[in-house]
């Protein structure tokens, strides 16, 4: 046992004496969380608007005022001819152009035939549709106000309740993803690369001829990364609650418990990879190709799983991060109990058992 502890100590030295790696290991979760939390906002704000207004009457002025005071738009200025629109968009500064028809107010009052065109930059579809939705709302609001319509009869009023995330913060969706990704990165990628490194430099052989049992060597390699993962888990949780204002609506114990299972799954994956490769570069590339990319692309962390085409959606089932994220969302945000995450729990546990068995078996086989 003593021998084993010395060995674990050696692994810690390896990691902490490497200043850069330590800094990055501990800082990475913080930076990623802040980036995700603050930058991954899908709300559309401060879009620059250009206006073509040949009428310049009270109605167009009223509508423009609505845009000026809206937090969604910044009125950049007027253009003199619709010909300029194309060139403006090409510079990539303007998101929307309002084009009013001639004699706008007059036509509106008399014939009801006034037209306002909303020309949006459709490059980014979501932004474009959100922009036109906002703009339409603003124009309709102006119309309602200026005509001073009486409360129309027969009004079905929708009462909207936004469950779990009433302020529509992007972080609620991304934080569980970041947790899944960081833990996978540190456990699987770091473990596999560091074991491959010992193989590459030949120190693994030296260790293997020592009186230590091979299983102990493996466990000793894994312990520090497990430890760092727990630190990172703590950092991420503390930051998400106190900086990003995320709730922990469910049981904290349950959340930690399921995170630990996920950490085991990731560590086992790292071991499995390192049992198959002898070079750091290969370990890295495999980790990146079979772990990181799928986690980022298929787990639902960034892109909605339901939009995936058939085969890819099917593939997403074998990605542990997907199940972990579902469970985290349910526990943290929706505040549900164990019963609700039982399925995810069973899946992650089976993955853990399967992977640990496989990697230990493979390792023994490789070493003997």
């Amino acid at each position, binding site marked *: 046992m003593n021998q084993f502890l010395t060995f674990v100590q050696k692994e810690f030295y390896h990691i902490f004496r490497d200043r*850069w*790696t330590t800094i*990055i290991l501990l800082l990475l979760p913080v*930076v*990623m969380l802040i980036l995700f939390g*603050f*930058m*991954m906002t*899908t709300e*559309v704000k*401060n879009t620059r608007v250009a206006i073509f207004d040949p009428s310049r009457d009270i109605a167009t002025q009223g509508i423009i005022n609505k845009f000026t005071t809206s937090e969604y738009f910044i009125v950049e200025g007027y253009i003199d001819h619709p010909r300029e*629109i*194309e060139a403006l*968009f*090409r510079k*990539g500064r303007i*998101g929307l152009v309002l084009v009013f028809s001639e004699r706008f107010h007059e036509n509106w009052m008399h014939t*009801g035939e006034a*037209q*306002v*065109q909303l*020309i*949006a*930059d459709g*490059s980014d*579809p*979501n*932004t*474009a549709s959100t922009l*036109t939705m906002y703009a339409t709302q603003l*124009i309709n609001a102006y*119309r309602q106000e200026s*005509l001073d319509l009486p409360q129309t*009869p027969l*009004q*079905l009023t*929708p*009462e*909207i*309740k*936004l*469950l779990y*995330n009433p302020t*529509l*913060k*992007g972080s*609620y*969706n991304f934080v569980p993803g970041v947790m899944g990704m960081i833990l996978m990165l540190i456990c699987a990628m770091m473990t596999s690369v560091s074991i491959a*490194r010992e193989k590459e430099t030949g120190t693994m052989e030296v260790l293997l001829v020592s009186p230590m049992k091979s299983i102990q060597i493996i466990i000793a390699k894994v312990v520090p990364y497990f430890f760092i993962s727990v630190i990172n888990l703590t950092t991420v949780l503390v930051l998400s609650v106190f900086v990003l204002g995320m709730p922990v609506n469910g049981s904290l114990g349950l959340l930690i418990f399921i995170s630990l299972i996920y950490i085991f799954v990731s560590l086992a994956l790292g071991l499995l990879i390192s049992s198959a490769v002898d070079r*750091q*570069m290969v370990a*890295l590339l495999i980790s990146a190709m079979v772990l990181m990319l799928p986690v980022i692309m298929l787990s639902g962390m*960034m*892109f*909605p799983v*339901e939009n*995936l*085409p058939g085969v890819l959606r099917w593939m997403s089932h074998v990605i542990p991060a997907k199940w972990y994220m579902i469970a985290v969302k*349910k526990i943290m*945000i929706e505040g549900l109990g164990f019963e609700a995450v039982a399925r995810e729990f069973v899946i992650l546990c089976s993955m853990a058992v399967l992977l640990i068995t496989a990697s230990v078996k493979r390792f023994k086989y490789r070493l003997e």
Partner: protein
Amino acid sequence: MIKYLIEKEFKQFFRNTFLPKVVVALPFFAVLIFPLVANFDVGHINLSIVDNDKSPYSAQLIQKVASSGYFSITDVSAGYAAALKSIENNTADAILEIPGRMEATLVREGTAKVLISANTVNGMKGGLGSAYLSSIVADFNAHIRSELMQVKSGRAVPALNIVPMYKFNPRLVYKVYMIPAIMIMILAVVGGFLPALNIVSEKESGTIEQMNVTPVSKFQFIVAKLIPYWVAGFVVLTISFLAAWVFYGLLPVGSFVTLYFFTSLFILAISGFGLVISNYAATIQQAIFMIFFFIITFIFMSGLYTPVASMPLWAQQLSIISPLKYIIMVFRLVYLKGSTLPDLAVPFAALSGFAVFFNGWAILSYRKKN
């Protein structure tokens, strides 16, 4: 003598079991698969309906929702509690609850409520879902009102004709927006980070020290190292262009010349950045972590996924340090809008600045002697 070094790099490049495949396969598959994955279209929203009224009006409203194209009605639940269960199981994203005696109340009192509850853990989906539902309800209002108005009087409410129009991407296809950005991601990996890792691995194996006692200058060594990756970068880009055209019929509105020109500027900048990393990293493990750290930071600040304009102000100011931001902007502008060099003065200046800055830093931070 640089000839011999370049020869060596190419031999090693092609002999590597992995790299040549990566250069060909990566852009091909990335351009094929990524747009399928990176799909933020809020397509079908799964809706659970609780109809406590079961009147002609409620049936009409449900019919309107069902035919809107935004929703798939996954279940009709008996009550709110059951519907909430579907939300908790992720089978439904939103609930439309029609209270009992809705039609009767509406006719008698002129107003009635419907309840919309949306799961907003995914804020975008929940938000859009509830917005679509409200606009369907508004439509429904207008519809029953006009039915009634026609009966009562003939006076029309002056309407405003709002005509939305989407330039450059009239059908609002998400792929068109993502593909140019994906090309940049691959380019950054092949042109910037692979050569950096390559240098670090020579450091680790000690061959770089051997080079240091030869008459080979640092400059020659680095340039010889970068050239194959620059070539690979252009191959990757060309394959990406082809793949985008073959799979998605996407061709740039602007010119390929502009794209290749900016690409060379970007590769210069990003390989300079890779060199800076290779100077500071002693081991591959360190290099990997630094790269991972910066690439993630750069990507999230680049506006790849979310528009830079919607970030908080400090984040927008910070985003100017991401070279990826400018090149992604250029690619999207040229691909979608056909922007030309004069339109792209700002990114041109920025990328040139990055190229000078990173390469200057790389030269200064390199110490051949210690």
